[in-house]
């Protein structure tokens, strides 16, 4: 099955094209904070490199994040609208799983880790087995030091800033004699496509219109309102991140 994989949750536009277990093309286009500008031309290049046109694509995989909220919305929106127009199935893939998949050949457990801002991380632990990965933990959002409590056996950390975060955790692991490895990596389009294809093979697809990113975190204002259970429409309370100009 020919599947297009898209992930824009990091600082690259990751686009991959696969056919079954064959990778036809796999690009990580530099996007920094501007995923939008070249997303469609990036997709066109990756398809061209695979000698395919959009019409040849039989399914679309979309990296759902977590990661950059603004970035991930671009890939999700483009992916679902392409699927809607071409009437192809779409499957959302957690970016943490795509990262783990690209590290699937290690012999330890895999912990995918992504910057969540303000000294926190998104993470999940996977077990690699026979070329696939199985998630063992809940999705984690929180302090990087607390993440160490979830890890009790040798683990490979992977993600765009895996090196940085593993350095922060290393003293804890050393004191517990837990061996850790690092595989610094960005999300890959081909991995998103492979994981999407696996879902298609099981008959699993997502609703083309309702597909949404996996944010794992509320926006600041929503968290603020929930915490203080206030109704800001009354009494003119000013909230962080609220623009009253419409």
């Amino acid at each position, binding site marked *: 099955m020919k599947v297009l994989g898209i992930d824009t949750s990091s600082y690259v536009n990751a686009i991959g094209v696969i056919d079954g277990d064959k990778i036809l093309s796999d690009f990580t286009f530099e996007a920094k904070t501007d995923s939008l500008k070249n997303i469609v031309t990036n997709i066109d290049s990756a398809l061209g490199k695979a000698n395919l046109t959009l019409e040849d694509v039989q399914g679309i995989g979309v990296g759902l994040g977590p990661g950059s909220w603004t970035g991930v919305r671009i890939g999700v929106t483009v992916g679902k609208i392409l699927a809607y127009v071409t009437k192809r199935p779409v499957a959302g893939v957690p970016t943490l799983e795509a990262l783990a998949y690209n590290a699937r050949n290690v012999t330890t457990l895999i912990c995918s880790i992504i910057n969540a801002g303000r000294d926190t991380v998104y993470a999940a632990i996977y077990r690699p087995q026979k070329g696939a990965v199985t998630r063992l933990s809940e999705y984690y959002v929180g302090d990087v030091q607390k993440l160490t409590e979830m890890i009790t056996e040798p683990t490979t950390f992977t993600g765009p800033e895996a090196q940085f975060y593993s350095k922060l955790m290393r003293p804890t692991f050393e004191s517990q004699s837990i061996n850790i490895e690092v595989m610094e990596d960005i999300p890959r389009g081909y991995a998103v496509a492979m994981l999407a294809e696996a879902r298609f093979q099981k008959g699993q697809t997502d609703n083309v219109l309702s597909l949404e990113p996996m944010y794992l975190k509320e926006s600041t204002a929503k968290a603020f309102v929930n915490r203080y259970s206030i109704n*800001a429409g009354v009494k003119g309370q000013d909230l962080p991140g609220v623009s009253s100009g419409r």
Partner: protein
Amino acid sequence: MLVLGVETSCDETAAALVADGKVVLSNVIATQLDLLNKYGGVVPEIAARRHTELIGYVIKEAVDSGGKTLAEIEAVAATSKNGLIGCLLVGVAAAKALSYSLRVPLIGVHHIEGHIFANILSNPKMPVPHICLTVSGGHTMLIYVHDYCKYEILGNTLDDAAGEAFDKIAKFFGIGFPGGPVIDELSTKGDRKAFRFPRPLLGSSTLDFSFSGLKTSVINAFKSRIAANEVLPVEDIAASFQEAIVDVLVSKTLRAASERQVSVVSVTGGVSANRRLREVFSNACQRKGIEVFFPKLSLCTDNAAMIAAAGYARLKEGEAAGLDLNVIPSAPFEV
């Protein structure tokens, strides 16, 4: 030519089908009023999340309810300039995917030009040149419309937009959100001469606007009574405040018309739905022998039909965008 318009610059997720820049076949708008009421304003991140959730449904609804198929769409226009960046991104991403997969031209539209076209859509016989007052929660702008796609900015707000002043006053007095419709409604029960609020910049020769001081002066006038827990005459306050804004908007627009010696004015944007504004404009224009045009109510607030119409006009000028179209959150309105 069948154009699909997409608009997500603020808190409305909208898509529409317009034929030949004239006939609105569908005009789908998903508002986020529930969120506005909850948070007392637009939270950019929450609005952007809602756009992502709804964009597919809204586009499909626009195509289906317009009685067309995707294959019949001949161009896609999206608001790419002026708005909240995270919100604009969603609509433009969708439009790019549509343009690429349908292999039809893509047009990036400035939100303000969209509002000008809301009036052209509603009043196909509206002549040019004319003076256009674009007045909403985000803008208060006087524009000399030389011709379709040819504009000259005569005046702009120096601080708050008129609609923003409505919102902030409504928020301060705790009477609801968005402020425009709430104050419009309350004012019908109030005395607009009960309080005399300032008319900022009305005496000066500039065509610019300023509403921040008016807002502050209204708030200051009642601070002590609020502190004393007095029951306020909100109907009278609303009516008097609205009257001050309407007075400034109408006077400046008519002054612009007289300076430019044009006998046609148009009023567009969310605040153009305000009943008192329409009434005062109509009366004043009649006295001066000026023709005044307003959009249909469905085209006053943000919508995608106006974006499709503007996009069609731009395409006729040969101004299609590339697939590398990007968003510009605070773009000057190009003339």
